[in-house]
């Protein structure tokens, strides 16, 4: 394997991504977790650029860091609890069982081994050699191909996705604007339970129930 200059940004991005994931998983606050996720998303977008897929870069930044990330920031902000009530023991790696760690390790090893053993064939080498001359400048042809591919081969999927997104938007708006008065509800519920239990105990034959 030859050394290539593009390996430098790739390595930097990979390290940054992994660091961001680490920070995201171990952050003290939900918001921190989310903004580290956003940095990771942007970095993944640049990974796409390195992987010769600038259109994915655009989509990644537009949809992921522009849309999803904002949504998750909102979620984090709106559901953030008062720090007094947060059980400090459940933050971070505390309560992580050995099983989980073992699963994680085994999974990583498994997948890596599987991937490496799968791509260790001649087809991979040939493909890499065939594409080694390519320079990252323009993929207009590929994007046109992509557009036709999407609309000819995946039209149903795209329409389905459109409906899915529409449903998701409408459903989430409906869910989000629904107001629930928790205290009133619970009072009513408790009152109902109380009356029901009274009714049951006052029924004939319920008092002298014999334990078998």
């Amino acid at each position, binding site marked *: 394997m030859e050394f290539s200059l593009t390996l430098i940004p790739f390595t930097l991005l990979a390290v940054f991504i992994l660091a961001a994931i680490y920070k995201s998983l171990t952050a003290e606050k939900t918001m921190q977790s989310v903004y580290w996720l956003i940095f990771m998303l942007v970095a993944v977008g640049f990974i796409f650029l390195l992987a010769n897929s600038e259109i994915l870069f655009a989509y990644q930044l537009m949809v992921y860091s522009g849309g999803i990330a904002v949504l998750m920031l909102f979620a984090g902000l709106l559901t953030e609890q008062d720090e007094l009530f947060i059980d400090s023991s459940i933050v971070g790696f505390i309560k992580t069982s050995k099983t989980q760690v073992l699963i994680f390790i085994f999974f990583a090893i498994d997948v890596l081994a*599987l991937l490496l*053993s799968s791509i260790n064939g001649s087809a991979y080498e040939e493909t890499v050699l065939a594409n080694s001359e390519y320079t990252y400048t323009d993929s207009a042809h590929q994007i046109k191909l992509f557009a036709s591919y999407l609309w000819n081969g995946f039209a149903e999927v795209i329409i389905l996705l459109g409906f899915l997104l529409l449903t998701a938007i409408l459903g989430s708006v409906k869910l989000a604007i629904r107001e629930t008065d928790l205290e009133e509800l619970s009072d009513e519920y408790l009152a109902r339970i109380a009356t029901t239990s009274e009714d049951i105990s006052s029924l004939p034959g319920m008092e002298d129930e014999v334990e078998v």
Partner: protein
Amino acid sequence: MAETTEVATEYFTTNPELIIWAVIVIAIPFITGVILMAMRVFEIKKGDDYKISESFTGLFGSTGLALSWIASIILAFKYFGEYVSLEGHGHIEKVVGDTAFLPMKSSAFKWGLLLDPLSMIFLVALTTIATAIHFYASNYMHGDSAYTRFFGTLNFFTGSMLLFVLSSNMFTSFIAWELLGFSSYLLIGYFWPKRSASHAGRKAFMYNKIGDVSFIFAMGFTYARAHTFDYLTLQYMLQTHELTMADFALPGLFLFGAAVGKSAQVPLLGWLPEAMEGPTPVSALLHSSTMVKAGLYLIARSFFTFYYTEGTHVDWTASEISFLTNGSETMLAFMSTPNIIAWFGTLTALAGGLMALTATDIKKVLAFSTISQLGYIALAIGAGGVTAGFYHIISHATFKSLLFLGAGAVIHSVHSQEMSDMGGLRKQMPWTFRMMLVGTLGLMGVPLMNGFWSKDAVLLAMKESEVVVGNMFLYWVAVFTAGVTAFYSTKMLYLTFYGKARYDDSHVKPGPTSPRMKGALIFLGSLVIIESIWFTIGTLKNLFGEDHSLLNFEYALGTMLGVHGGEFAFVDALPSTTAVLLGFGFAYFIYAKDNKAILNSGFVQFFANIFENRFYLDKLIYYISNGPTMVIGSAFKTFDKKVIDELIIDNIVTDKIGFGSARTSDWMDVNVVDGTVKSIANSVSTVGGRLRLFQTGLVSNYAKYMMLGVVVILSFFVLENYNVINFLN
């Protein structure tokens, strides 16, 4: 006897016009009956204020029957004019019209109407008598609370009988048969608030049901052999030797069983006297031409099934009944269907006559007389004289209806049915007396009356019969019965119309009958007289030369039915005439000369007791039906108690098996069953306790277990990829 006519080459023809007329004849009583019943429902719903006037209802019902009568006469004229020729050996064509009962696969089940001389003659007689009875009843039932219901039911009943008479196959016959049973139940139990009336209705219904079951058996056997119910088709199959007489041994027997139920033959005659609980017009209709004649009409209709006219002797050895006879020729002949019918008929005739002797109720006398006469008819048919039987059916229908109507008139004025409450009514009710006299003479069989001629034909048929075993014995029994008939007829007439008046003068004022009832009586009486003259002339003409017109009634009947009876001779009439004179003399001696002391002798009382209890037939039936049941039941009870309970259950089962197995099962229960269950439960509990740790409700834990599975699966792939294991190949 036993001259045969040619077999018709075309066994039936069709004529829609006649069939439509026949449908009209049947439909008018049905429709009027249903309308009247609907009116009754309307009355019940609206209350007494909306009661429909009797004059309208009576007129409506009677007019319906009258229209049917007129239509039937038109139909008969059309039929006889077109299809019946009495010239030479005679030529008869039969008209059939049928349609599918329901749109179903089998073509055997269909509505069918059959017009032949048998049904035509009976139809005319039936409608004539029924119309007279209707007009009579419209006056007789005056003041009844359910006047409308009465006429509705009566019309319905008559319609059912008309359908039965005209039906062309056993299936339609059966429907009409059941309708008859149902409507007769309604009529007999007409005064249902009276306990005895409702009981009588139930009894009649139940006795008839035995006949119905027999009919169903007959139908089943017939269908199994021929796959059809058509009388004519069956006859045709017999003629073409597709079927043999032996095939009809069982169906014939079962058909006669059906007739036994309906026509009150020997074992099942108990219901008929009870049926007197119904209103008198009903009794008149029931006993003269409708209900009880239906069974015998069925026999006459399916006569070919057990007595084909081709030969006098039918080989029964191939039939199902042959195994009963153990190969004996005599037994075989004795067990043959005609023989059975003849014997039962004779027994019925004798028993009915004897029972009538002791009856004190005027209607009961007539009822037993009916049984006796039905026995005569069955006797004749069994002996092979279907002509004679049918002859007697006609004459009996006429005079018996006349007698009943007269008796009804008497009851109507005396308000009692007991003859002990009558007497001396000759002055008060002259026309009734005259008509009753005519009817009684017919019933007695006084020479030159219609009963004389027909009874003589019956006796002659029995005398000359070659299929009946011991026919001479039966002949003399029948002659004796004729004497008995004369005796009770005289007694009834005398006790009613002669002697001192025994009724209560204070509140019973017997007087002349009303014009409408009188009219009906005179109409029927003149019918009897006309018949008598007709039969006399016909028979006498037959003696001196052949006459093939309808005027020679018996011969014409024989021609039309295809079976000719024997020739009348004055010698043959002597025994019966002597018996009649003797019976009359005895009765006159006892009642008119007031020698009733003879009746008090122990000898007479012994028999009188038997007769009064109807030969204990009801009790016999009770014991046959209940007795064996009770005996078997108590035997089972004893067996159950002694053997099963005490011996088997207590000793063997409980002691040996029970306690032994209980101990075993106790051990099994504790050690094996409980142990297994407990160990399963414990293991489930243990496993559940372990698995419970997985059921935390934490999403991440579930994800963890899911991923564990993924890891295991992936590990397989990885190991396989590195050729560590080889499970895919």
